[in-house]
């Protein structure tokens, strides 16, 4: 029973992180129409910044906040320095066909990922280093009994829950949130309503950058930090987003938690080396039965 419960808790806290990664992908997909493969590269970069600050004896929380800010800044820079110029160039060249329009930014994001990984390797050297947790990551002891979860699990679940509430409030309850939804759903009507869609687009890169770097900060303690550690989260986060429906924020969160539990159960009851096989089976099953994802809308399937 304890094994089952601890698998549930570990899966939920894992799932919370995957949900964040998936959320970051969906934000940029909806806001800018780009599947951003550089996302976890950006997160890796900001996690290195946090790690450097911690190594220089700054508190975890200062490093945490600085990493989130730099994640947002990096997201904004990717849009301003790469995606926007690319959009402007394309309208006057051979690349201006519908297929190319959707492919070019994706290839560019892969390029950015490569650049970020290489730069991180050059700046921080490519050897792995540990990354601390702000709270204890051993099994919590209550009344002398070891609980099936750790304080860090609770911390992760709590922080992701708050993030999801804040995101929901932002989208449903603020003018900028409405502007972002409108721009994603119908850019033309949004522009005719006076919404600056360029600004909105950059903002979705920024928010996605913050969400991804949060995912990076929370997942790194369980692995080690190297320029390539977060590739795994990218793959799982991407699968979560596709399973949930690439254009649905709620779907991406559900997909994240579902995959977290799956990974955790395979880990406990089967063997860690089967994790990818299990993920692949889930992905293929969803793509065959419901290609648009659990909550995705039908149009996305064509892309």
């Amino acid at each position, binding site marked *: 029973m304890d094994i089952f419960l601890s698998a549930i808790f570990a899966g939920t806290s894992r799932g919370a992180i995957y949900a964040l990664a998936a959320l970051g992908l969906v934000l940029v997909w909806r806001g800018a129409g780009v599947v951003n493969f550089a996302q976890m590269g950006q997160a890796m970069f900001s996690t290195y910044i946090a790690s450097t600050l911690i190594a220089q004896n700054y508190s975890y929380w200062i490093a945490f906040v600085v990493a989130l800010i730099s994640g947002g800044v990096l997201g904004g820079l990717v849009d301003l320095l790469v995606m926007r110029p690319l959009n402007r160039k394309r309208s006057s060249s051979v690349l201006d066909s519908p297929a190319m329009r959707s492919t070019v930014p994706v290839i560019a994001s892969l390029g950015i990922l490569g650049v970020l990984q290489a730069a991180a390797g050059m700046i921080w050297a490519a050897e792995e280093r540990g990354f601390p947790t702000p709270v204890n990551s051993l099994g919590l002891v209550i009344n002398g009994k070891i609980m099936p979860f750790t304080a860090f699990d609770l911390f992760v679940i709590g922080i992701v829950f708050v993030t999801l509430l804040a995101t929901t409030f932002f989208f449903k309850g603020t*003018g900028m949130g*409405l*502007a972002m*939804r*409108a721009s994603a*759903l*119908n850019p*033309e*009507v*949004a*522009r*005719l*309503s*006076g*919404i*600056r*869609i360029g600004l909105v687009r950059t903002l979705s890169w920024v928010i996605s950058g913050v969400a991804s770097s949060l995912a990076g900060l929370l997942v790194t303690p369980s692995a080690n930090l190297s320029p390539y550690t977060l590739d795994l989260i990218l793959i799982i986060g991407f699968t979560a987003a596709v399973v949930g429906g690439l254009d649905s924020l709620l779907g991406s969160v559900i997909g994240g938690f579902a995959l977290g539990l799956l990974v955790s159960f395979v880990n406990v009851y089967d063997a860690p080396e089967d994790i990818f096989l299990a993920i692949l089976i889930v992905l293929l099953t969803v793509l065959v039965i419901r290609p648009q994802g659990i909550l995705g809308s039908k149009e996305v399937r064509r892309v």
Partner: protein
Amino acid sequence: MLEIKDLVTEYGSVKALNGISLLAHEGKITTVIGANGAGKSTLLRTISALEHPHSGSISWKNKSIVGLSPEKIVRLGIAHVPEGHAVISQLSVEENIQMGALFRMRSNKADVRLAIQEIYQLFPRLEERKKQLAGSLSGGERQMLAISRALVSRPSLLLLDEPSLGLAPLVVEQIIQTVNDLCRNTGLTVLLVEQNANTALGVADHGILLSLGTVAADLPAAQMKADVALRAAYLGY
């Protein structure tokens, strides 16, 4: 006054507008009629900067607006209601209306609230349905919503693209009457694109007939309505 001179807009090598010149006077309804493919929608899309003109000039209140972005043009008081009941179906009725006022929400919140109230007085059905998704509305209600989305920005020039498209005659009548009242009571300038020439010429002050991207006739509305030969030649009835 909206003043357009020698306007040329191309889609690839096709000239959708081939040297259009026209005037739309303030506080009046000017209607642009013509067959499918005459360039009516392209004309409105070029004014609101969704399309870039190849050459020619567009000025509003004696200032050139060519080269500005659509977002900027809305801020100058030019609101465009594109063809096909352009609302965002996945957003609620209320959100669709608010969307049109987002850009001035911070600078003039009180007036935005007032504008939304006025819209609900104008179209009480929208207030009854404000929490519903726009996608669940009837065609007529959707057109009312699309117009409301534009009106909430308090435009001085309204570009209206085929509001009658796909609607029952009674609903068309109601919408056109509302636009007419707005123009007469508030001094709103209207550029109304219509395929339904009779209805449009019935309320308009001035008529402009487009054919294959050029102006075929530019006459007071009553005179155009009475010109049987013109209608037979260009509109087929």
